């Protein structure tokens, strides 16, 4: 997307799930930490953390946010954003992750850091909700 970049390594924003696991059941608690890493807080306009699902495949993208947290300089936790901040949310009953033929449903935690200048930074961790096997084609 315009003005965005995925940052990896230790320089950009940091996002991790704890404990790290590839799959979750509905109703599980999803926890993790996030921070702006080594980015200067004075250069950051705001930070958004979302737990969301989105579709991939043939159709236009559908997306819905299950958990959303926005921090800006007026927020209490703003000054601590250089250090890992914890978040947690209980995962919903649906939709489950799904690998279909033309419809795919994916879950992820997305950290979006809006910079005062230059590109926004995005860090994303994908996880599975449920264990629905991939769909197969019908002959």
């Amino acid at each position: 997307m315009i003005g965005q970049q995925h940052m990896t390594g230790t320089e950009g924003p940091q996002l991790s799930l704890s404990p790290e696991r590839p799959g979750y059941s509905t109703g599980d608690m999803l926890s993790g930490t996030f921070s702006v890493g080594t980015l200067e807080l004075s250069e950051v306009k705001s930070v958004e953390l979302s737990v969301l699902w989105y579709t991939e495949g043939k159709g236009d993208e559908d997306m819905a946010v299950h958990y959303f947290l926005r921090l800006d300089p007026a927020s209490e936790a703003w000054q601590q954003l250089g250090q890992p901040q914890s978040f947690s949310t209980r995962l919903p009953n649906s939709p489950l992750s799904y690998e279909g033929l033309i419809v795919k449903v994916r879950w992820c935690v997305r950290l979006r850091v809006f910079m005062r200048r230059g590109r926004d930074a995005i860090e994303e961790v994908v996880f599975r909700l449920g264990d629905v096997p991939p769909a197969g084609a019908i002959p």
Partner: protein
Amino acid sequence: MARWLRLYEKKRGHRRTGSKQFASLGEALFFSVFLVAGAVFFAVMFANLVIPEWRANRHFAETPAVVDRVVIHETESRDGTITYRPDIYIHYSVGGHRYHTVTYNIQRETFTNREAALTGAHQFKFGEEYPCWYDPMDPSQAVLVRGYSGFIYVILLVPISFFVIGTGGLIYTLSHWGTSAERRAALARGATRLDPADPAVQRQRQFPAIPADANQTNSPGTTLAYRLPSAVAQGWSLFLALAAALAWNAIVAMFVVMVVQGHLRHEPDWGLTVFVSVFVLIGIGLLIFLARQWLVTTGIGATRLEISDHPLRPGKCYELLVAQAGRLAINSLEVQLACDERATYRQGTDTRTERRRVFQQQIYRRQGFEVQPGVPFEGRCPLEIPGAAMHSFKGDHNEINWKLIVRADVAGWPNFEREFPVVVYPPANGQTV
């Protein structure tokens, strides 16, 4: 520039999604045009129509005037339409100064009907004195007829609606400019939860992105718990076939008449004849389809599906009853459980939908039997939802739809297929059985 305002963004298969920035800019420009056009036209109409009329009624001063001449002025437009305008020549005095003018009302109203113009003009007789109202700021301006024209205020609704659409659209676009998709989605989710007491909202909170199943459970069955609704009401499909056949053939009939008249005059247009023949063939096809729908709807009788419970869960077993009414000799009747993926996407200005079947299983089949009038055939079978099944899913552009399909091969009748949507919920804790 290209770095900050790309026309296209990420590639999706064979397509590219548009730039959100560029789309927002386009939206802003689009609504700005509406807003500016609405504001300009409103200002022009207000200044030239509303204010002069209001001043003529409220601010013009009365004085006696003498009619010098009464004329109906005719104007013919390019398309031959004639309009009629009453022109009343008068003279009057203001402050010792004598003024001559041609007037009627402030709008210098024109009529498309000569009688109406005459009626307006004949209120005034040559040489007689009538009250007129002149503009104190410009005494050379005067009117003989005052009043308010309702049509002006109706016409004003046009620029006002442009202005409102432009303003609303621009506020919406600007308020979303630079807002992340996640934030917009979070705001949208908050808006949909405004009425937590609503059962539909409660269900959506408990099972997000799963389609509502109220239609499947609002009709009790005669034998089992619920009677499932058909995906398309049979009456509706007949009505749509009828409407399509009538509309198409009515239009084609007009061209057929033109072609036949040409042939009768011995001036055949063979190009048009061939062109219309293709459309006639399509029309015949629509009539055949209509006849088939008519036979299926009225002759074959209703198909009824009842189920022991709903919504369905993966790994669970249910009881199903299929009933077929009518007077039929059925070669085969089968019920299938199927799951389709449905994706909708925009390609240019087109919206396209693609479907892909990802599960299909025959759960019931019966061959060679007859259905007697008043005694519907009834068959029962177990229905097991696969333990690893994906639940039903409904997004704005993507869906996963489960359905039961009744398919019949009927002797002497067209074969038919009827679909009954069902909703599959996810298994407990989301883990497949």
